[in-house]
């Protein structure tokens, strides 16, 4: 699928969003959040096959988009309209900031290309130099760390065991949780599922669990209509 190939070109969720904004010829300062969220989620679905680390970041953004969408829906209390902050503001700020650097990096890329066409003189008479074992130029901290790192490799088994960071939630756990949550009902809203959950990792893993359940055909996910919450339905 052509989408699949394209996906790998995105440097992250912000990059993907900028792409969608450009594709739809949308004003970045006035993003139709429902449309973008829908298209974004379509890409996410296609991403299931990609590596988890990447997916985690993309899924986190999906959560943010859905949150913004939900906020847009909330009936505004009797506060004057101009006093309510547009829920999109923060995201727009990030997109505009990221866009600046994306452009700057393409400028750097063209500088790099130009520099690849010129070559400095490379031969230097050894007799005016120090003894051969010496390294070029001044050392940086990183040089020292690298050398230390290399040196340590020669030492028999490390004294301190590697500490593997324990992840306190797994996709399997969250899948079981979702199934349990839906035991007595045939559908639930995504917002219910993650109610009160502030830990990013749990949100991400919950999303992954939903994707996994979708893949296994145990649930379907749908949006009933524009500006609605995200529903998970049992099959």
């Amino acid at each position, binding site marked *: 699928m052509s989408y699949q190939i394209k996906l790998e070109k995105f*440097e*992250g*969720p*912000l*990059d993907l969003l900028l792409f969608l904004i450009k594709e739809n010829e949308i*004003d*970045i*300062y006035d993003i139709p959040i429902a449309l973008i969220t829908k298209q974004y989620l379509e890409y996410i679905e296609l991403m299931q096959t990609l590596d988890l*680390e*990447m997916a985690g*970041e993309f899924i986190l*953004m999906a959560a943010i988009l859905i949150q913004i969408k939900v906020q847009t829906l909330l009936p505004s209390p009797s506060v004057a309209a101009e006093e309510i902050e547009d829920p999109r503001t923060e995201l727009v700020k*990030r997109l*505009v*900031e*990221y*866009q*600046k*650097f*994306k*452009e*700057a*990096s*393409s*400028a*750097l*890329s063209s*500088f*790099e*290309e*130009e*520099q*690849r*066409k*010129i*070559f*400095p*003189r490379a031969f*230097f*008479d050894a007799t*005016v130099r120090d003894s051969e074992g010496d390294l*070029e*130029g001044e050392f*940086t*901290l*990183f040089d020292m760390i*690298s050398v230390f790192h290399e040196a340590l490799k020669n030492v028999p088994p490390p004294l301190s065991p590697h500490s593997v960071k324990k992840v306190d939630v797994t996709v399997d756990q969250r899948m079981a949780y979702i199934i349990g949550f839906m035991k007595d009902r045939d559908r639930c809203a995504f917002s219910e599922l993650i109610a009160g959950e502030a830990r990013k990792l749990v949100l991400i893993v919950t999303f992954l669990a939903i994707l996994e359940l979708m893949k296994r055909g145990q649930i379907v996910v749908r949006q009933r209509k524009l500006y609605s919450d995200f529903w998970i339905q049992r099959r």
Partner: protein
Amino acid sequence: MTAMDGKDDLKPIIEALIFVSDVPLSEAKLKEIVGNGLDGPQIRSCVAALNDEYRKEGRSFEIIRVAQGYQMVTRKEYGDWASRLYKGRSRTRLSRAALETVAIIAYRQPIIRVGIEAIRGVGVDGVLATLLERNLIRIAGRQPGLGRPLLYATSREFLRYFGLDRIEDLPTLKEVVRPDASQ
């Protein structure tokens, strides 16, 4: 060796020094070595005269100003020939992730990892390691406060790699213009 009667003596000395230097040679270093009250305008006029001669004589190299110094390099037209000599040895281009990351560091330095990730929206651990390995960035200390995270900044090699004289030569960041900014 020490006496210099005029520009005629000075020019080949400056040429020889730039020729033998394996890094861009700064004006400060040139002044230190040549002594005799050598000043910036003298250096610049010698370099300009040398480049004029090279052009007239059809030399395949020239002196450029980069990373706060002077360096003798091949003209772009001969880049393809030079790269044939180093076939298979030339360094790979930076990935888009690396370019984006080094751009953020260049414009926002010194910056901590989390600051870069906030802008890019993705983790940059591996990219930072690559950039450090390629000497394009350096560790510029630690940020005071909680956790004292490492601060990153660009290196001199960054300037050389991208052909910039000073960090101020980076193009200005362009803001996306808000269409109805007038309201």
